[in-house]
């Protein structure tokens, strides 16, 4: 029938999945090795490197910073992004068409250029504290996800429902929370997840906005790797993968994973 797959193609796809999953499996193995250099397969098994993570205070503090940044940045991006997405859809014909492009500029401009420019202009020339610039950087970096994903949801929303509620006496702001928001819930959750993941994994923007006193986990990992090459890094990576598993479980539970292909 139409769904027959050529055997060679099936073998090829199998190899691709091996290529995709293999390195991560190897990393799990390496994190359990009792040698003090990175190797796979592990010579002997130990959880020592996982406990070692908690002995390096820099990992703990930067992990907390990363989580705070991801939550705060994502929240800010939604706070600004949802109203923008709403306006783009509700007043589609009345707003200039270039406006929607403005919101996605943060993903059109190379992240590293954005990070560098932010450091130069906002921290150094304007004297903003580093932590604030870092927060601004993350909030802006994830803004496009908030606007676009919520916007996609709103594009499928029938605004006559909102008008119906208003005609029945519900004030506009209340209508947004009681009528519009519940109907675009999936979009908001998706935007939150994508933004959160993007922020927590970011390297290129944070790169210039960290230093003594404040850093994010990915930057700390990069710094650690310049000095040591032991399985602690693999252990940290495994913990981050567990975070990914958690996020995927949330995605699956709330939206179903197929939303990612849309």
């Amino acid at each position, binding site marked *: 029938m*139409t*769904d027959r*797959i050529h055997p060679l193609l*099936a073998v*090829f*796809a199998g190899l*691709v999945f091996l*290529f*995709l*999953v293999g*390195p*991560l499996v*190897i*990393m799990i193995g*390496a994190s359990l090795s009792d040698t003090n250099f*990175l*190797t*796979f397969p592990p010579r002997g098994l130990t959880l020592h490197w996982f406990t070692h993570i908690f002995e390096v205070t820099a990992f703990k503090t930067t992990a907390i910073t990363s989580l705070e940044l991801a939550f705060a940045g994502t929240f800010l991006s939604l706070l*600004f992004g949802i*109203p*923008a997405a*709403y*306006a*783009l859809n509700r*007043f589609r014909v009345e707003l200039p068409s270039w406006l929607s492009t*403005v*919101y996605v*500029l*943060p993903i059109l*401009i*190379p*992240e*590293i*250029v954005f990070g*560098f*420019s932010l450091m*130069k*202009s906002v921290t150094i020339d304007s004297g903003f504290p580093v932590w604030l610039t870092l927060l*601004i950087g993350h*909030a*802006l970096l994830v*803004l496009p996800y908030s606007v676009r994903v919520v916007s996609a949801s709103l594009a499928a929303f029938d605004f006559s429902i909102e008008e119906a509620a208003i005609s029945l006496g519900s004030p506009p702001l209340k209508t947004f929370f009681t009528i519009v928001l519940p109907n675009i819930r999936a979009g908001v959750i998706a935007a939150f997840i994508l933004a959160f*993941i993007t922020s927590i*994994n970011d*390297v*290129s923007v944070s790169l*210039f906005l960290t230093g003594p006193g404040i850093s994010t986990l*990915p930057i700390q*990992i*990069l710094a650690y*790797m310049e000095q040591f*090459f032991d399985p602690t*890094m693999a252990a940290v990576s495994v913990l*981050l*993968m567990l975070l*990914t598993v958690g*996020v*995927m479980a949330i995605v699956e539970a709330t939206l179903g*994973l197929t939303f990612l*292909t849309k």
Partner: protein
Amino acid sequence: MNTMRKWNLSLPAALAVVLLLVVPVVATFTTTFTQPQGAFAPYLAFFNSGFRRTVLWRTVEVALITTVLSLVIGFLTAYVISKVPGKAKSVMIIAAVFPLLTGVVVRSFAWMIILGKNGILNDFLIWTGLIDAPLAMLYTEGAVIVAMVYLFVPLMILTLVGVLDNIPKDVIEASISLGASPASTFRQVILPLSVPGLIVGAVLVFTGSFTSYATPQLLGGERQMMMGTFLYQRAMVTFDWVGASTVAAIMVVVTIAIVLVMGRIARKLNPMAV
């Protein structure tokens, strides 16, 4: 009422982007044109330096090879995924999504373990007797490309599964009912209808790999300097901010050029965009 409301809602985010992104980036560009040596001096300096030309060329080369490999691998895999039935499809999508949600640092690092001197690949090759001493695979262009392909194949797969799933099933059945074999249907119907998705994927991968930092830093190191790592080195190691700004400007110009050119190609190849 609507007049005020539409601006009240849409402007805060837009202003934030303009003030905190556009203005700083433009300021970066401006510094490259306001040097005492002359308006284009930093660019002349860049292109007169053999080392810097090599960095630019290496970055373009790595990005191109990564794009082509990701396109081929991603498209064929996405085609398989789009054909398998429900349950297996979900498993394959999960396998593709998982690396995508895992950070760049973690994913690049995995390849350091594989390609390192004591890495699994060297161990394996020595065990098979193919080589006697470990090969220096890390800090080569090949290592960067492999890790970049690893980075971008999942993105390509997801983009293209979406595109392939959007091709109406009855269009494919129409082709078959008119006598086209599965192979002809792939060539004459599925491939042309996937072109817009392939272009979008190519743009994402090219710009992503052209401007990446973590992967070239970890797998290329000092020896395989690329635009991203070079920008960082100029800015934070040598504090040559004009030099760094020049690199930044060139990155943006190349990125925008690629987006525009590919957009043109897409419009040419995609007659559906009336």
